[in-house]
């Protein structure tokens, strides 16, 4: 089968996307797949961490609900399924619905009845600190291809600078 993009080379990668309208299959050659940012198994085998690679592979076929990401750290529900760990405190809000159900199953309850806590108001030590934080968040957003989040973070950094 020829690549559906260039119609020149043989297709070696099948990209599967789950969209609200249904599943979309696309057959691509290695070069076009790379151009589209689709990881191929060929490049994936070169990495050491099998699990991480699997995660990348899975990203090619994101279900729409999985693609919803945390506005703070960019982690997705799929990230959670693969690692069993949340990315940051804000993930609890981003995934509140499904987490509530999960917590019920894990603990038999989803409501904290222990110690209450009010966080102290901590002044950001300096402007530099918060710029560093935003920059780290920006890099992470770019790495995990959360481009909308990245653009927003970039704007915020510009405002501070």
């Amino acid at each position, binding site marked *: 089968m020829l690549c559906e993009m260039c119609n020149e080379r043989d297709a070696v990668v099948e990209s599967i996307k789950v969209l609200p309208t249904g599943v979309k299959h696309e057959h691509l050659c290695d070069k076009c797949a790379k151009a589209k940012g689709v990881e191929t198994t060929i490049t994936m085998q070169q990495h050491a961490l099998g699990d991480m690679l699997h995660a990348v592979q899975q990203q090619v076929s994101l279900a729409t609900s999985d693609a919803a990401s945390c506005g703070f*750290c960019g982690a997705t529900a799929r990230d959670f399924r693969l690692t069993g*760990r949340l*990315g940051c*405190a804000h993930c*609890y809000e981003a995934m509140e619905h499904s987490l*509530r159900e999960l*917590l019920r199953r894990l603990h038999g309850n989803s409501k904290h009845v222990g110690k209450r806590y009010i*966080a102290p108001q*901590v002044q950001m030590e300096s402007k530099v600190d918060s710029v560093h934080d935003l920059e780290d968040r920006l890099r*992470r957003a770019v790495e995990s291809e959360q481009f909308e989040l990245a653009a927003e973070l970039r704007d915020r950094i510009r405002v501070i600078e």
Partner: protein
Amino acid sequence: MSTQRPSLDLSLLPDGGVRWLDASGANSDIVISTRMRLARNVSGYAFTARAREGERLRMLAQVRDALVHVPTLRGSVLFRLDELSQNDRQLLHERHLVSKELAGLDSQHAVRSGAAVFLGEEAGLLVNEEDHLRLQALRSGFAVPAAFEAVQRLDRELGAHVPYAFHREFGFLTACPTNVGTGLRASVLIHLPGLVHTKEIKKVLTGLQQMGLTYRGLYGEGSEVVGNFFQLSNQTTLGRSEEDLQEHLVRVVRQLIEREEEARRILVRDAGYIIEDKLWRAYGTLRYARSLTFDEAMNFLSGVRLAVGLKLISGLSVYTLNKLLIFAQSAHLAHQEGRVLKDDDEANLVRARYVRQALASEGGGHQ
């Protein structure tokens, strides 16, 4: 042969970090130690595994700066795990002062930049573990209220100056949903040879699980049960208060201690000389063997510990036996030898020598 000298100066640690082994607490013939730990995360940063190096280091700096307001950790010693050799990290782990993950000994995780531990006399603070902060207090014997009080105090002092991530409905937020809510893991390290020898243990462990407790080996998560030492802790952290969780543990462990004592009485009554012979053989092996694997040492130590509990062997202190549990491990042996041991065979020889000397200097064993 390598002459590399492990660099960690353990004399810096309050009490050498081994006070929890001193068998001074209640029921210390059965319960070796009690540990309370609280998981907390600092607002404003991604959780440790997702955080970038800069975030981890800034979070560590923020916590370190706040410690001037934390009397519980005044005079504490800071170890940067990311700057220690593998043997030194393992040493702290063997001493139960840091987790396997923080020490970077887990096959899945190398040591993270910013991984650190503050060790104080009353409590410790692990930084950049799976959660940003793990507050812990270790006590000798069965001492749930004392350990809980210490960790609560640290939590209060630190939480007033470092903003924790807290959710109105879910409580204290943690990287893994199994710790969310109170973030409390209340555990005891308990020795149950009586229940193992009377073959009651399976039933007991199933019962514990039904009562919401989980068990692990000597080294917590993922470690195997060896030498009849079990680490019991609460399985859930959400939907019950901290007081509830620890009271439940206390109630269950009290029953367990009674059952273990009962099992020991039955052993002596029904299998008198057989059990006596078995335990003396364990002592004889430890006293004279020239090579001991870790598992062998643990199993024989379990026997000798039981013999001391049954008063079959006198003149040996529980403290010595507790210390052997920790000091007969590889990183400790290397530290005592002042060099890296080249392989398991050498470690087995050094271990046997160390155990022989410790028991001989104790002068126990006479009937």
